[in-house]
């Protein structure tokens, strides 16, 4: 049993340790306490860092109160390495009762060392060396009084190990991400190049056919010119699709994020509506705008946002029969800006709704377009960290569609969360 005064000292130790907080300083503090308590010349903490078999031991901490001329350090360290490589298999504090007090640690200064290995797992993590002018005899009472220090050291090393394990796992995960990213980029590039290279031959055929049609209009019979005209329409569709595919791959390019800017959403929306208005009028549709006067600006790519809004507006125009109306709404809701394009057109089968933003998905009623327009829209919303969804029908007759997207407010750097700024995993853990 420890005496009341010893308990008091232990409490002081704990307080000191928690006050200093710095792990290296904590080690020195522990060694100082041991040196003082056992009336030693000094203490050394020799660590195998990282705690794996065969690693070189280093002196991690020495008691400040010691006054040892450590001239034999290298040979002493290799002696320790030899002795404790491999080590024990428990995570507990081990206080060996082995009488090693007779070992000479330094020939010149006639030091005696008591070596106490600290082990966890399979490895010896550190060796606590008690150094004295006289042979050290560790009796049970001394052992008992060292227990607290050992607990503290053990706790420190356990943390080290856990930290090391986390770092290792993080490193592995980052490597995996890196690998996948590279693979993905390789495929994107392949996809882009292939699609891109389809453009030239197809547009050549398209232009040749146009020339044939123009120059042979007198010699071709009606059926033949119809075939050529239809070929041109089909090729036009292919070129449209190639354009959309290229667009989609370009949207995957992370360099686009560097061009993000503060932008006036109101202005972008009005610009889009100006174009859409004339398209709507040409089709005999009524177009109206309800944009909140106090609509805040957003952080994004103007070109892409306007492409997104135009995409939704032209869709609405396309699927709304003559005499219908389309409405563009925009307002703030909590920390988001919501933009909605509404029509009273043919509507979408509710079962199709969840899939309309998927690549190449087309609701059965329509056959125009490449089927990529809405997936481009979703991709643009994604890169702005927003959400996009559709509601339909809007009335009891099964008519009307409302496509909405929400963009978050209050962020101003596209890189702030997704990148580690080239830091090592250990740096990240430290911050």
């Amino acid at each position, binding site marked *: 049993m420890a005496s009341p005064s010893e308990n008091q000292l232990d409490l002081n130790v704990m307080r000191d340790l928690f006050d200093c907080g710095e792990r290296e300083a904590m080690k020195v503090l522990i060694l100082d306490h041991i040196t003082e308590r056992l009336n030693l010349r000094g203490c050394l903490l020799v660590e195998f860092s990282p705690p794996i078999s065969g690693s070189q031991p280093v002196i991690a901490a020495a008691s400040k109160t010691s006054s040892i001329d450590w001239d034999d350090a290298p040979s002493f360290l290799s002696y320790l390495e030899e002795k404790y490589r491999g080590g024990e298999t428990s995570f507990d504090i081990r206080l060996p009762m082995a009488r090693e007090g007779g070992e000479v640690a330094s020939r010149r200064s006639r030091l005696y060392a008591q070596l106490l290995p600290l082990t966890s797992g399979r490895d010896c993590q550190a060796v606590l060396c008690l150094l004295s002018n006289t042979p050290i005899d560790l009796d049970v009472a001394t052992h008992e009084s060292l227990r607290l220090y050992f607990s503290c050291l053990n706790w420190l090393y356990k943390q080290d190990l856990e930290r090391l394990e986390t770092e290792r796992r993080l490193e592995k995960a980052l490597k995996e991400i890196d690998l996948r990213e590279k693979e993905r980029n390789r495929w994107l590039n392949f996809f882009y190049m292939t699609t*891109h290279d389809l*453009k*030239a*031959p*197809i*547009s*050549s055929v*398209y*232009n*040749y056919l*146009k*020339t044939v049609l123009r*120059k042979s209009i007198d010699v071709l019979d009606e059926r033949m010119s119809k075939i050529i005209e239809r070929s041109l329409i089909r090729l036009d569709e292919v*070129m449209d699709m190639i354009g959309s595919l290229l667009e989609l791959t370009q949207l995957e390019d992370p360099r686009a994020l560097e061009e993000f800017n503060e932008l006036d959403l109101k202005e972008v929306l009005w610009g889009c509506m100006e174009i859409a208005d004339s398209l709507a009028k040409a089709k005999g549709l009524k177009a109206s705008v309800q944009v909140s006067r106090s609509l805040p600006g957003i952080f994004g790519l103007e070109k892409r946002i306007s492409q997104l809004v135009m995409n939704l507006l032209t869709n609405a125009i396309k699927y709304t029969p003559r005499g219908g109306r389309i409405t563009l709404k925009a307002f703030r809701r909590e920390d988001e800006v919501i933009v909605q394009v509404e029509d009273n057109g043919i509507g979408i089968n509710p079962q199709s709704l969840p899939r309309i933003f998927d690549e190449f998905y087309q609701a059965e009623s329509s056959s125009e377009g490449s089927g990529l327009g809405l997936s481009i829209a979703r991709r643009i919303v994604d890169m702005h960290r927003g959400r996009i969804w559709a509601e339909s029908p809007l009335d009891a007759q099964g008519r009307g569609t409302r496509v909405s997207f929400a963009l978050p407010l209050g962020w101003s750097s596209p890189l702030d969360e997704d990148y580690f700024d080239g830091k090592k995993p250990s740096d990240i853990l430290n911050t």
Partner: protein
Amino acid sequence: MAHKILIADDDPDVVEDLSILFEDEGYEIVVASDGAETLEKIEQENPDLIILDLLMPRVDGFAVFNTLKDPKWERWSGIPVVVLTSVREEVSQRRYELETGMRMDYDAYIEKPYDHEELLELAKRLIQEKG
């Protein structure tokens, strides 16, 4: 006298197609299939308009463009240039800026695939303006 158009493109189909298109409208056509030939033809033929592809073997269109900015080529620097390429405009500008520190000041930039009517109208307008 017929106006002369230099078509610089390494894709024989584009050259063929544009030749038919412009010859039908009464233009005289000169062709080049790479940048070096383009510069040669500019010197020899003094065209009224250049339709320039950017990605060509040996000397590319960017280099042709840059050469035309040289004071030694001042005589031909007023010829209107229509860039006709499959490369996106911002990508071309970025590359040119990286290489020369300047922006390309062409008269028109058309991304392939091109439209016949649009090209004819553009050529007519540019030749009239500069003529």
